[in-house]
């Protein structure tokens, strides 16, 4: 069953907290990974790999470039998650 936007955000926030050491309350849809959450390029790779495993989606490197905010990532996962 497909996850809702709220459910994806909650799970993604946990991943970002674990991987980047950012408080999960800070991980909101309008936050920028690099600008607001201090997620550098290496950390982004860790977030992506953990998200692929968690949500069962493939996030190719080309797609990662377009994920600048948490909201971008949530939308991508929502659209591409296994039905």
């Amino acid at each position, binding site marked *: 069953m497909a996850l809702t936007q709220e459910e994806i955000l909650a799970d993604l926030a946990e991943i970002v907290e*674990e991987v980047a*050491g950012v408080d999960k309350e800070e991980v909101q849809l309008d936050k920028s990974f690099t600008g607001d959450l201090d997620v550098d390029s*290496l950390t982004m790779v*860790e977030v992506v*790999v953990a998200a692929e495993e968690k949500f069962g989606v493939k996030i190719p490197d080309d797609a990662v470039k377009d994920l600048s905010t948490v909201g971008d990532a949530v939308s991508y996962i929502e659209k591409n998650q296994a039905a």
Partner: protein
Amino acid sequence: MTARKSVVVTGVGATTPLGGDAASFWDGLLAGRSGVRTLTEDWAEPLPVRFAARIAVEPSELLKPVEIRRLDRSAQFALIAAREAWKDAGFEGKFAEPTRLGVMVGSGIGGVTTLLSAYDALVAKGPRAVGPRTVPMLMPNSPAAYVGLEFDARAGVHAPVSACATGAEAVGHAIEMIRSGRADVVLAGGTEAAIHPLPIAAFANMMAMSKRNDEPERASRPYDVDRDGFVLGEGSGILVLESAEHAAARGARVYAEAAGVGFSADSHDIAQPEPDGRGVAEALANALVDADLSPSDIRHLNAHATSTPRGDIAEVMAFTKVLGSAAENVAISATKSMHGHLLGGTGAIESVATVLALHHRQAPPTINVDQLDPEITLDVVRDKPRALPEGQIAALNDSFGFGGHNVVVAFRSA
């Protein structure tokens, strides 16, 4: 000729099998405790050696989860010891003059547990499972780099690698870095985290390790007739070295003068020590000249003494050859009997111990010497600490590594 800069030790930090900071490490040394324990992990079961000296306080108790995730265990140890040393020296936060701060922190093997677990992940789950931080975690300069980032060191961040001489070599190069004028303050030391079945199997197959599985606390026994090899330990020691002028200008407490260093190389064999201790003697002689010390000034030696049958003898022969009859007045401590052999970290925690011995005027004991090897004719401090004389005295810490690296660091009482 202009006078050479004096270098002093103003801070110490350590995380070791005897305690998670320099004070508890020192207390453990004076108490003659052993930090060696049986390894209870499943992977230890088939090994010929099933004991080691794990650090007393796990990094997860002191570091943030994200630091544990991003740093190899060896870098975690170095960061813990460096933060303690920095605070102990009276510094807070980043250094005020970054281009005058250096780092000299090495390890013998580097991020070996990171490398091996990344390989396990590759084999089990494929290339996507190899983390993007694997390289910055496994590289041997990673601990030095993280220490540099922590305090904003921009004068140069270096990572000497010379097997079991690494920690002492780092202290020696740090002295030279300050003397040369490249830095006013240098965080120097070594670290190692190699308690893993692969390094244990490899060292055991070299016939270098003790196999006294039924009595792990009695296994590290330098100078005893029944010694049968070294005991692997883990941990880190870091010293804050500083030009005497810089320390005086800020009114810093001085533990001891880092008076000089002697280096040499055996050029004999990749793993065996030169049997007459020729290279060791050359490094000792070089250290005395460099530190402007005469043999009679030396009153304490923190020996390399790893508890191997041949190495312990070669070291003592070299010591007697260089110091002559003055060698008899030196209180010799083989502290590996308690904390085991930390490989690249060993010269660093032993330098911390040597500095604290001068500061407290106490030589720590050597434990597990039931019957002194008759070839050891010098004054080994056994079982209980020994008071060191008052007045200006000096102490040495020597370390030797596979590859034939010999380093002797000389400290003078403050």
